[in-house]
């Protein structure tokens, strides 16, 4: 009995692995493949677009944009039904959502510019009010279509099950279009994000560029509604850029990295969700993106947590070694356990704490270096160099040999090592 159960469990797990592999290599049928590729395209475009919002410190504006699409989706549905058409025709719903998100964006900019309200308050107000209005309209539709489920709730959290082929194509094409526009507009957008004052001085139309930036975010939201849902689409605009920022200080690289991270999240999330019925696409894409963010936070060179920790450790070791050597040179015993251990490992002292030959030589060099630094810091001629004193840097890294020789003339007796 137990064996049979275990075997079934093993078989199920194996089946799951095969499915996942098939999904990742696009062998899970035509529809799943289209959805996966569409989501990947969407992710690339969203990551690249979001980078400019993030660099301009306006990441959360996308939250207001995405929530304010809801009334437009429902109104679009109502208009199309009233005209006797199919209410769920995706381009029509996208048009409606674009119009209402645009209205939300205008209200947001107006509130921020014309009243004393700060941008975060304006974001929250637009977000909640438009969303509330959308919910009201949603209940109107539910009453209107009495019994016939409109299925508009899928736009809240996204759903790819039962997505039509044309819809997947629309999403992929929309993503590609936005990506192209981002590439075209990247220079003015970078300038405005970093230094609006300078950009204005260069004769750039600030409001126009900002509007374009927001318009692209709006386009991403509209395109991504069907796949990720309006509550979570903002994650695709925020998480990849924040993750990408860890890897580089250059805008171009960050944009490309954000596109890569967003694209892989879209691809892997959609593929994962195709393997089982209870795995919704939107949340999976977001969680994959979050996992990539965590990896970046930990592992990125330079800004990553691990790199910072290593840097700190290396610094600590250098300080301990230097102080230990100076103590040896002064003939004082070293008691500090970490210092002793480090010096023993470097072969500078013996197990009983007595300095080795190499240790004595190095200690003398350290002492000489320290004496030279002291000379240098008391001499106004070397003021610029003296600013680089941190108790660790060897003087040879700061001055040329000739300069050091000139300095040595001042400390005759000790210099004769």
């Amino acid at each position: 009995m137990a064996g049979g159960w275990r075997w079934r469990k093993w078989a199920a797990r194996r089946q799951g692995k095969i499915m996942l592999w098939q999904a990742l290599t696009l062998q899970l049928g035509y529809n799943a493949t289209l959805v996966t590729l569409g989501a990947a395209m969407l992710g690339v475009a969203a990551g690249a677009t979001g980078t400019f919002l993030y660099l301009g410190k306006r990441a959360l504006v996308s939250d207001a944009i995405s929530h304010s699409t809801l009334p437009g989706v429902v109104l679009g549905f109502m208009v199309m039904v009233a005209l006797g058409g199919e209410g769920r025709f995706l381009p029509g719903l996208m048009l409606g959502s674009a119009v209402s998100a645009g209205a939300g964006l205008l209200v947001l900019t107006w509130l921020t510019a014309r009243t004393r309200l700060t941008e975060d308050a304006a974001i929250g107000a637009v977000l909640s009010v438009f969303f509330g209005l959308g919910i009201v309209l949603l209940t109107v539709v539910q009453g209107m279509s009495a019994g016939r489920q409109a299925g508009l709730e899928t736009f809240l959290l996204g759903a790819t099950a039962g997505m039509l082929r044309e819809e997947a194509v629309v999403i992929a094409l929309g993503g590609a279009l936005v990506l192209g526009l981002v590439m075209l507009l990247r220079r003015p957008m970078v300038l405005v994000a970093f230094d609006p004052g300078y950009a204005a001085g260069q004769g750039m139309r600030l409001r126009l560029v900002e509007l374009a930036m927001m318009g692209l975010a709006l386009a991403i939201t509209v395109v991504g509604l069907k796949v990720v849902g309006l509550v979570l689409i903002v994650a695709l605009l925020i998480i990849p850029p924040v993750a990408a920022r860890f890897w580089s200080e250059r805008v171009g690289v960050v944009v490309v990295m954000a596109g890569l991270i967003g694209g892989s999240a879209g691809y892997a999330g959609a593929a994962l969700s195709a393997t089982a019925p209870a795995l919704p696409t939107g949340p999976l894409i977001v969680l994959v993106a979050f996992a990539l963010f965590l990896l970046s936070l930990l592992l990125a060179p330079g800004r990553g947590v691990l790199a910072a920790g290593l840097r700190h450790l290396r610094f600590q070791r250098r300080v301990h070694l230097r102080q230990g050597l100076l103590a040896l040179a002064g003939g004082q015993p070293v008691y500090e356990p970490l210092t002793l251990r480090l010096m023993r490992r470097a072969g500078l002292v013996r197990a009983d704490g007595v300095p080795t030959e190499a240790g004595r030589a190095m200690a003398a060099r350290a002492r000489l270096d320290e004496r030279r630094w002291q000379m240098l810091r008391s001499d106004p001629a070397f003021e610029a160099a003296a600013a680089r004193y941190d108790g660790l840097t060897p003087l040879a890294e700061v001055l040329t040999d000739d300069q050091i020789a000139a300095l040595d003339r001042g400390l005759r007796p000790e210099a004769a090592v």
Partner: protein
Amino acid sequence: MEQDFVMLSLPPLVIGICAAVACALPGNFLLLRRQALIGDAISHVVLPGIVAAFLLAGVVATGPMMLGAAVAALIAAVLIEAIRRLGRIEPGAAMGVVFTAMFAGGVLLLEQSSASGVHLDVQHALYGNLESLIWLDGWGWGALLDGQALRGLPPELLRMAGVMLAVAAFTALFWRALVLSTFDEGFARTQGLHTGALGFALVAVAAVAAVAAFDAVGSIIVIAMFICPPAAARLMTNRMGRQVAWSLGFAVLSAVLGYVLAGYGPLWLGYQNALSAAGMIATVSGIILGFAALLGPCRHPGGAPRGRGAE
């Protein structure tokens, strides 16, 4: 008619008012501290906590769910702070990363739970069901004096009223300290106030109000009431006391008007189906904010009413 009102409309109306007031009170301070979006973040991050509590407890019970929500909010606060410090990321973006990821986790958990046979509604979490909080024992206005009937009141009503009173007590008790540390943190510190602890307490109180309201009326009202009434009030006056008073008035007005419009509006127009009360309350609060932004005496970026000097 009278019985209908007391039975069907009075409890949701009172709960709506309590929720609106409980959220608008701390919202005033959050707005001025540029932390207005905390309500938005809280209402997203509590979802995984609520679902996890539901999965662990196995039943839809309020106690465990509130606990789960509180734990989730705490985890989110720690995560946001950690990401902000470790990654040197601006607070808005750190918040965006955390609340979307946690909300996604919550939705995933939810789908898994509904797949395993039990059902918990996403839409309930998003826009609540104020309309379903009815009082079956409420046979008329006289029932308000009838102990037997009062026991049948929806538990959300007492809870929400209790939270509202607690929030009001907190605000009244720490009024001076809150105002001082909101406007001039440095000065408040020189006066011996623990501004850090106070800020944390404010966020904690906001979280309690949000979670309680979230349970009763859904997250839309929470987000809207944290921001819209205080924002509208900010455009009406320069004095903190008056701002809070205005915001409470706006909050109550939104709750009452929104509920009535959602419940009776369609009937007046000849339709049968009621609309979402939560959505309508949020909409009404937005309309009020719109009027304040167009006509409020202190709406201009400078703050003082145009044509007059500052007080």
